[in-house]
């Protein structure tokens, strides 16, 4: 897997597939490009549509380096990584599709470089701050010492996160402390689609969020945060949105 060294020496690995209009793919917390985009059939779907892809292993994930200092996980670091990858891929303007934490990064990228994002798809995300209500010490209890905490939902999410192979508990712990994934400052200037599973407990009231961003909305019935990605209607509506003429 090709990789580049980012501004702070952190090595970021990414995968490219060829095609006409490139889309930047950003995976979720404790996942990876392979888990979020390859296994779910998204890379095959984009190849069939002749769309080029750049799928990045975000710092702390997959094959990329995994710093353990929370300072290494500021949103600006993630954005710098993306700049370096896009420069290497020789892409100026890209469509951007992020899922869960990746959607936060996508939104930040779109707001930081509105002229570089063609169309924006935000999956598995809503108004609520990404790690809203996550007490870093409780997260560490689960991540570093495998001790369950009172908050059952937090316990299940973080325990699952820890079990994904190739993840580093220390890196995830630092990320939760370091990433300031605060809410939205302003509506993105490019066409935006919010796409969530109707039962996504981590992305409640997505309709309000979409309205707040003056974005289109897709809610997939019967699907939650962890199983909407490969749903057929989820896929078809996003591909249609990305294919719409600019």
């Amino acid at each position, binding site marked *: 897997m090709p990789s580049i060294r980012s501004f702070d020496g952190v090595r970021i690995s990414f995968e490219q597939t060829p095609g006409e209009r490139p889309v930047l793919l950003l995976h979720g917390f404790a996942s990876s490009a392979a888990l979020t985009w390859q296994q779910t059939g998204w890379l095959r779907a984009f190849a069939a549509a*002749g769309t080029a892809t750049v799928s990045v292993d975000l710092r702390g994930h997959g094959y990329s380096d995994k710093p353990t200092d929370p300072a290494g996980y500021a949103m600006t670091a993630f954005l710098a990584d993306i700049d370096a990858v896009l420069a290497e891929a020789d892409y100026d303007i890209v469509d951007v599709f992020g899922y869960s934490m990746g959607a936060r990064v996508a939104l930040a990228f779109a707001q930081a470089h509105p002229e570089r994002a063609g169309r924006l798809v935000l999956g598995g995300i809503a108004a609520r701050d990404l790690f809203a209500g996550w007490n870093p010490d409780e997260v560490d209890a689960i991540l570093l010492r495998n001790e369950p905490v009172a908050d059952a939902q937090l316990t299940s999410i973080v325990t699952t996160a820890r079990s994904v192979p190739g993840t580093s508990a220390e890196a995830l712990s630092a990320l939760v402390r370091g990433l300031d994934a605060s809410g939205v400052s302003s509506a993105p200037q490019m066409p935006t689609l919010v796409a969530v599973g109707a039962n996504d407990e981590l992305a409640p009231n997505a309709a309000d969020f979409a309205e707040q961003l003056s974005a289109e909305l897709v809610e997939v019935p019967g699907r939650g945060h962890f199983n909407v990605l490969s749903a057929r209607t989820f896929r078809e509506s996003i591909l249609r949105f990305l294919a719409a003429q600019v």
Partner: protein
Amino acid sequence: MKTDDDTARRLYRLMVTTRALDAEATVMQRQGIIPGYAPLKGQEAAQIGSGAALDLARDFAFPTYREMGVAVAMGVDLIGYFASHHGSWHGGLYDPLASRFAPINAVVAGSVLHAMGWAKGEKLSHGTGVSLAYFGDGASSQGDVHEAMNFAGVDDLPVIFFCQNNGWAISLPTERQVAGGSVAARAAGYGLAAEVIDGNDVVEVFEATNRALQRARSGGGATVIEAMTYRVGPHSTSDDPGRYRSIGEEQSWALLDPIDRLAQQLRAAGADDAFFESARTDARETVETVRTGLVDMTDRPLTELFDFVFTNPTPRLLEQRDAYLSNAYLSNEYASEATHG
């Protein structure tokens, strides 16, 4: 010789048409319009890049049975080409001399010697044409290929030995087929120039073929080009690749699609949606024309069982023909075909 944008666009159109026809051929086999087909999906760049470089006024190509992309690139009559897979005529119904494209050959490697022989003829007649022999990693194990390369080396013949190393010969992977791991490496043993190229980069294939054509035209002799590519589809429409390779391997190659790669470069060089749409439209029209031609293709007349065995048929063969065609027990629709001269 850098490839200009117009050429790159022409190569793209030819690849899109080839991909569409190749896919339709499998559909036609499933629908019973043709009994069988050998897909070339994944190898479009290697075939178009080399076929499109040939000069139809003086060069000559020698295919096997999987070079439909070369036929598209060289403007061969495609309905005539597909007549072979349709089961109408083994060698195809196109004119090989007018097309500069030898008849489809089902036994691999044999035609590599023919390309060498043609090149010997071109040299004897002081022409500047070049022959191009198509074979794969499987055929590279046949003695014919080694003999052809040695003859070409001894005489500095204007022939290009174009190996599409597509990773598989039916169920045998290249590492179990090609000792030493490279067909091109053998060229040195025969004193031939050689290049190993990315067979999925159509511009690289086009330029490498042009380099070899220049070498041959200027008396520099033969070249072995090993175009590294991958047979994404099955060996044939009744093959089951699940018995010898993983879907993961097939799909990882499919993601690095040669057509999408060129599309990306063309888009970066300013090609707009209208261009891509017209390429798709042309492809659809060609597919419709070929499909209609094959659906309407009638059985060959019975007399053709006998007609082309010799250029000057023997009396005995004509007797055999007349006896059969005039037989009472042939149902009347054939009997009426009784020969008349």
